[in-house]
């Protein structure tokens, strides 16, 4: 027990309430984020069994999946969406949970507002009924998505019954080439390990590239851990982490802040700590990435071509590739840069933060979007939107022909009216290109904000490096 420990082991062991003989562990949960889609049945369960929310102050709720990104002054038009959002409001009132309502400027995507408010803290355990909870791992927190039954379990007991996961370290070393971003890094990682490569693991991202990333970039990387199969991804916190958190409304203050930082400084994997698996990527080998298929592992460099199922490693893979190509309406061997688009979506918990908007705005400044595309920016939170407006980014986007929307999950999953029509093709900064994800028969290509901006300008998938030489 006293040998060198990984960051994960330090957090895990400091949150064990009880461990059974077979290893089943009761893990204490420090922070719980709640949204409208995966919580109604959990609150209903509490009511049915006469249970309370054990620690309302450790719980923060926000509607994000269903909310319209257009006019917020009127009630939500879609009845089922409206009922779900109202149900969250009523549940929060009844159980004493703090809620950022739809018209609160602090409203936004649950994984954007947690860090933004300083609710997300290093060394904590954080859960949410949403698989992209891995985002918060960027702060050196053990953060993972759970189902609704587990949401109810956490509300009632502030704990979860878990099995200890295995550990994987993914190191990205070197210097990222020009035009290559955090999004390209994580897409390249998923391309390398596969969509189930991280199943059963908690991933620690390490190496000079990861240390060099901003907090926003680290969040983008950790966000898509689940697309590589890992429930949680984490990064050791450092000076950038404290700088980001200091002064945030829900972060510790005064003497508590000093104590907290002193503790947070110990949150690194010890020299000599061992992992169950190790993966290494060289930064120099990563180019701007896009996806061609219907799984996040279907990545290709922007200078590449759509792959041929003939080269699949086995029969199951070949069938999956054929199905994906048919769904995506693509021909094997065609250059990726010839793929023509209908829509561009800039937003989501992966890439809806201020830095993402700045990066995209830099590419499109003074340019116009192509006539064949409709493009929209959906900031990750009301505060991101406000800050972008203070910086004049909204004007750059609007001048270029982008729609400037209110905050929410929006077209990442299309639970609100922001959806693709059948066969519409979208360059999207979100995290999933599954069949039907952005709308029935919609076709999604995942990429970075910079690449999305470049695609909007030319109307097709485009190497951003050509536009910003």
């Amino acid at each position, binding site marked *: 027990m006293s040998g060198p420990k990984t960051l994960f082991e330090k957090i895990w062991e400091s949150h064990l309430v009880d461990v059974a003989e077979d290893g089943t562990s009761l893990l204490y949960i420090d922070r719980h984020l709640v949204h409208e889609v995966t919580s109604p049945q959990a609150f209903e369960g509490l009511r049915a069994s006469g249970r309370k929310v054990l620690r309302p102050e450790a719980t923060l709720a926000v509607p994000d999946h269903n909310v319209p990104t257009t006019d917020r002054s009127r009630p939500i038009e879609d009845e089922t969406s409206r009922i779900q959002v109202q149900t969250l409001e009523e549940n929060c009132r009844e159980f004493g949970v703090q809620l950022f309502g739809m018209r609160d400027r602090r409203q936004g995507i649950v994984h954007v507002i947690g860090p933004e408010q300083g609710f997300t803290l290093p060394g904590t355990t954080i859960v949410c009924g949403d698989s992209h909870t891995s985002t918060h791992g960027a702060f050196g927190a053990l953060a993972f998505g759970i189902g609704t039954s587990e949401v109810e379990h956490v509300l009632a*007991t502030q704990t979860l019954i878990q099995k200890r996961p295995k550990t994987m370290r993914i190191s990205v070393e070197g210097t990222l080439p020009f035009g290559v971003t955090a999004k390209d890094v994580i897409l390249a990682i998923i391309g390398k390990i596969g969509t189930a490569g991280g199943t059963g693991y908690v991933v620690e991202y390490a190496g000079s590239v990861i240390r060099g990333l901003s907090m926003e970039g680290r969040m983008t990387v950790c966000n898509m851990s689940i697309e590589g199969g890992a429930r949680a991804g984490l990064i050791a916190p450092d000076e950038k982490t404290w700088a980001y958190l200091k002064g945030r409304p829900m972060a510790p203050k005064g003497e508590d802040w000093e104590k907290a930082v002193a503790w947070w400084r110990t949150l690194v994997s010890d020299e000599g700590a061992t992992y169950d698996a190790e993966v290494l990527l060289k930064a120099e080998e990563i180019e701007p990435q896009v996806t061609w298929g219907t799984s996040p592992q279907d990545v290709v460099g922007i200078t590449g071509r759509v792959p041929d199922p003939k080269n699949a490693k086995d029969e199951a893979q070949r069938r999956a590739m054929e199905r994906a190509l048919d769904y995506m309406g693509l021909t094997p061997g065609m250059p990726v840069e010839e793929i023509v688009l209908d829509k561009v979506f800039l937003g989501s918990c992966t890439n809806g933060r201020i830095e993402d908007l700045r990066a995209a705005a830099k590419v499109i400044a003074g340019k116009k979007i192509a006539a064949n595309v409709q493009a929209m920016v959906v900031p990750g939170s009301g505060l991101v939107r406000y800050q972008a407006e203070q910086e004049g980014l909204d004007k750059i986007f609007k001048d270029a022909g982008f729609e400037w929307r209110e905050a929410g999950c929006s077209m990442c999953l299309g639970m609100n009216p922001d959806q693709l029509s059948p066969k519409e093709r979208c360059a999207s900064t979100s995290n999933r290109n599954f069949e039907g994800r952005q709308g029935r028969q919609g076709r999604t290509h995942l990429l970075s904000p910079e690449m999305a901006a470049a695609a909007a300008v030319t109307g097709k998938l485009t190497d951003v490096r050509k536009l910003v030489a």
Partner: protein
Amino acid sequence: MVPFTKLTGIAAPLPMINVDTDMIIPKQFLKTIKRTGLGKNLFDEMRYTQDGQEVPDFVLNQPKYRQAQILIAGENFGCGSSREHAPWALADFGIRCVIAPSFADIFHNNCFKNGILPIRLPQETIDALMAEAQNAPDPTFTVDLEQNLILRPTGNEPISFKIDPFNRECLLEGLDDIGLTMQKADKIQAFVAKQQAQAPWLYSAGAGA
């Protein structure tokens, strides 16, 4: 939760890898505030055309498999979103056991909370069971959790499987794990007291602070 002890039923073959939870239950059905009623929309986009007609080729629309209670699928079943609506939809349709070479972690956990047994087996075994589900005139299998055995329609050698002991017991007994955890309230309180002393900022900060 309904206990799972022994299940005898039709197994439907779904020879696809990476079946994601968006496929199992698309987003438009996540707006419900109930756990029930999702079975008719299970695999909605593969099962129905845009105008709501059944796609005859889809396995659960074929007469042989309409009453399926077991699903046999490819690797990484249930990947993607954490939506518990996926196991709710499977259970509401009547499927109480999924057999695959591997499962995504969150989906795998969610199954146990809903009386669904996810069984991991090696690819070769899956291939054999998949062929039997496809070819047997009556693809009825028996999944016996008490014996950890799958009995096959062909009468071939039963297949044994392993399930985590805690999860197995919860399924067999139909246990409510919140109730189990609440029995450890003393331990949780002791943990809180200790953490509050070591990391007071976790209690002074937070929502409502």
